[in-house]
C-alpha cells in the first residue's frame, strides 16, 4: 500500500514537453482514474509512476519518499496493459504463477495463491488452457490475475478494457472494482473513456495538454466541471456549448435570446467578462415551452434509444442535443421550441 505524491512533475521527450510540472496527491488505497484524450500526458504520467520512464524534473514520492532513482522492479508496482502480453506457449496457470516463481516462492504456496486469484477472477475452469484458446475478455482477466498475484502496493491499469463490447466491459469493471474493494491497493487507471473513469474511480484526474484540469470525485467533475474542457470531455451524450454575450451584469444573450441570471451566475459572469460559452447537459434541455427561458430551433434528427430519445436541433448556427421521453420527436426542418432552466447553465470563458 502506498500514498503517491507528485511534485512539479515534468516529462520531456527531447525538445517536446509532455507533462508540464503537475502536482497531485493520491491517498493510500485510493482509486484514481487519469482521464484525457490521446497526447494529454496521462500515459507519460503513469509510466513515470511505474518507473518505466525517467522523470525529467520534479519528484514522485511513495509514502513521502522520493522514488525517482528507484528501478521499476523495486517499486512494488504492478501494471496491466491493454495488450496483455501473455506467454503463449504456457498455460493460464503457469502464466499467473510466473511472477511468483521468479520471486522464489515454494510450490505449495504458489499453488494456493494462483488458485485463490483464479477463483476471484473466474478463471478456475480455464487454468489448463493456453492463451491462444482464450476469448479477449478471458485473456484480459488472466493479465489482471498475473499482475495481482504479486500483491503489489500500487496497481496501474492502462486502458485495459477499452476494446471490449458493452457486456464484457461491465463485467470487467465489476472485476476491477471488486479487486479494489478486496485488496485496497492504491489503484491508478488510465483511460480516454469518460464512462470508465466515472464508473470506477474514487476521484478522476482530468488531463489535457500535459496539465491537470481537475482532480475531483466523479460527481464533481460531472456536475461542477472546473472549465470548459472538463465539461466537454465528461458526460455522455456530450454537453452542449452555446456562445454568449453579457447584457448588463445580470443577463446574457444566447442566439438573440436574453436570459436573466441567478445570483451565483452573476458573480461568475463578473469573473468571465463580456463574452464566453454557456454549457448545458442534454438532460437539462426539453422540447416545448415549459420554462421561462426558451429558444427557437430547427429540428435535425431524432434518435430512438431504448428508453428515451435523443433529439438534435439547430439553434442558430449551433447544433444542440437533448434527451427526451420516448414519445417526443422532431422532423427535419421543423420549427421547435427548446426550454431550459437557467439554473442548469454552466458559464465558462471562451477557450
Amino acid at each position, binding site marked *: 500500500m502506498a500514498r503517491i505524491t507528485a511534485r512539479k512533475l515534468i516529462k520531456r521527450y527531447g525538445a517536446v514537453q509532455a507533462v508540464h510540472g503537475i502536482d497531485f496527491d493520491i491517498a493510500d488505497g485510493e482509486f484514481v482514474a487519469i482521464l484525457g484524450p490521446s497526447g494529454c500526458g496521462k500515459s507519460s504520467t503513469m509510466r513515470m509512476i511505474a518507473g518505466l520512464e525517467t522523470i525529467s524534473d520534479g519528484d514522485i514520492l511513495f509514502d513521502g519518499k522520493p522514488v525517482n532513482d528507484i528501478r521499476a522492479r523495486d517499486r512494488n508496482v504492478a501494471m496491466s496493459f491493454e495488450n496483455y502480453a501473455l506467454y503463449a506457449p504456457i498455460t493460464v496457470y503457469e502464466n499467473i504463477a510466473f511472477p511468483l516463481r521468479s520471486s522464489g516462492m515454494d510450490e505449495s504456496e504458489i499453488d494456493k495463491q494462483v488458485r485463490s486469484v483464479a477463483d476471484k477472477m473466474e478463471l478456475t475452469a480455464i487454468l489448463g488452457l493456453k492463451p491462444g484458446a482464450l476469448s479477449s475478455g478471458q485473456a484480459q482477466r488472466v493479465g489482471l490475475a498475473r499482475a495481482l498475484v504479486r500483491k503489489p502496493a500500487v496497481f496501474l491499469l492502462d486502458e485495459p478494457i477499452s476494446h471490449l463490447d458493452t457486456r464484457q466491459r461491465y463485467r470487467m469493471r465489476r472485476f476491477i472494482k471488486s479487486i479494489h474493494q478486496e485488496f485496497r491497493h492504491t489503484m491508478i487507471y488510465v483511460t480516454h473513456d469518460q464512462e470508465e473513469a466515472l464508473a470506477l474511480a474514487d476521484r478522476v484526474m482530468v488531463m489535457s495538454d500535459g496539465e491537470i484540469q481537475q482532480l475531483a470525485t466523479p460527481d464533481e467533475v460531472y456536475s461542477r466541471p472546473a472549465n470548459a474542457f472538463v465539461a*466537454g470531455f465528461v458526460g455522455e451524450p456530450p454537453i452542449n456549448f452555446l456562445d454568449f454575450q453579457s447584457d448588463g451584469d445580470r443577463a446574457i444573450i444566447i442566439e438573440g435570446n436574453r436570459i436573466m441570471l441567478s445570483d451565483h451566475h452573476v458573480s461568475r459572469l463578473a469573473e468571465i467578462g463580456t463574452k464566453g460559452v454557456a454549457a448545458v447537459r442534454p438532460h437539462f434541455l426539453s422540447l416545448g415551452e415549459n420554462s421561462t427561458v426558451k429558444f427557437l430551433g430547427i429540428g435535425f434528427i431524432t434518435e430512438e434509444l431504448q428508453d428515451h430519445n435523443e433529439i438534435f436541433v439547430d439553434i442558430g448556427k449551433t447544433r444542440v442535443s437533448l434527451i427526451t421521453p420516448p414519445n417526443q420527436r422532431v422532423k427535419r426542418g421543423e420549427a421547435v421550441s427548446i426550454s431550459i432552466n437557467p439554473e442548469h447553465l454552466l458559464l465558462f470563458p471562451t477557450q
Partner: protein
Amino acid sequence: MYSFVNVHKRYGLRTVALRKLNLDIRQREFFVLYGPAGAGKSTILNLIAGTTKPTSGDLLRNGHSIVHLPPERRGAAMAFENYALYSHLSVAENLAFPLRAQGIVKAEVEERVRKIASVLGIGHVLERRPGFLSGGQRQRVALGRAIIRPADIYLLDEPIGHLDAKLRHKMRAELKALAEDMHATVLFTTTSNKEALALGDRVGVLNSGRLEQVGTPHELYHKPANTFVGSFIGDPPMSFISVSVEVDQGNCKLRTADGRIIGRMDTPPPTNATLKLGIRPNAITLSDTEMPETIPGRIDVIEHLGHSKIAVISAGKDNISVSLPAASPARIGDKVWMAVNSSGYHVFANETAIQRGIN
C-alpha cells in the same frame, strides 16, 4: 433489395464465419449489423461487395443472383475499416477519384467534394495527403470516398468506430441525415449498442456467424428473441436470474432460488425448461424495508455515470444491476429490497423468449 438465401461461409476448413444466413436488405433502409468482434459482420459486407464468395447458398439483387458478378458490377460502394486511401493523392483527389472514374465534369466534381467534405468536417484538410492526417480524419476521408458517388448500396464497416467520443456522437447524426437525404440503402456494422439503436431502421444481431434476431431498435429492446439479444441490446445490460415456476389455478408464479415470488405469467412455460428472468436495470424499484413480492439484496458496487448511477446488488447467487438517479443516497453495503416492475422483465425458457401473457 439484396437477399441472402441460405448462405454459409467458411474460411479454410474449420472457421465458420456465417451459418445459414437468410436476410433481406430492403431498398432505402439503414440496416445495422450489430455483434461482438468475430460475429461475421464484415463477412456479410464482403459477400455483397464481391470481395469474397459464399461457400454455399445464393446472394440476390432484386431477385437475380449476383454471386458470379465481379465486384465492379455489384452496385456497391464500400468504406473499408483500414481506410485504403491513395497515399500519393490529396484528400480532395481521394474524394474525387470515384467521380472522375465515372467521367463527371470538373465543376460538379469540385462541388460534390466540397459538400461532402463540409458534412464530414474535413473541409480544412482537402489539400493534405493522407499521411498528414489523424486517424479520425483518415477514417472520415474513407467514409466520404465511399458515399460521394451514387450506389445501389453503401457498405460501411465500422466507419466511425475510430473517432473520439464527441466526434462519433456528432458524425452519427450527420450520417443518419445524409443517408435520408440521399435516399440511400446502407449496410452499416458496429459493436456499439448506441450506434446500432440510433442509426438502424432495422438491426440484425449477429453472434458467432448466426443471425439471432432482426427487428427495429424498439422491437429488439422490448422483445428480445433470446438471452443473447437480451444481454447484447441495452446499456447498462440486462441482468439474468434463474427462476422456477409454480402453477396455481392457471396462474403461474415465478420464484427465485430461495423461493421468493418475483413475477407472474399467464401461460405455463414448457415443462422441464430452464427458466431465466431477464430484468432491465430501469425496471427495478428499491426500498429499504420488505414489501410483498420483493427480493432482498446487498449493494456491492455503485458506478457513477454522470446523470445516473448503477448499483450492482447481490441477491443469493445472482447479481442484479439497477439504475438509480445521480442524487440517490444509496451506498455500498446497504441492504435493500427489490421490486421488479411488471412491464420490465422478460422470461426465457432454455435461452429463448416466451410470452408472459397479460400479467
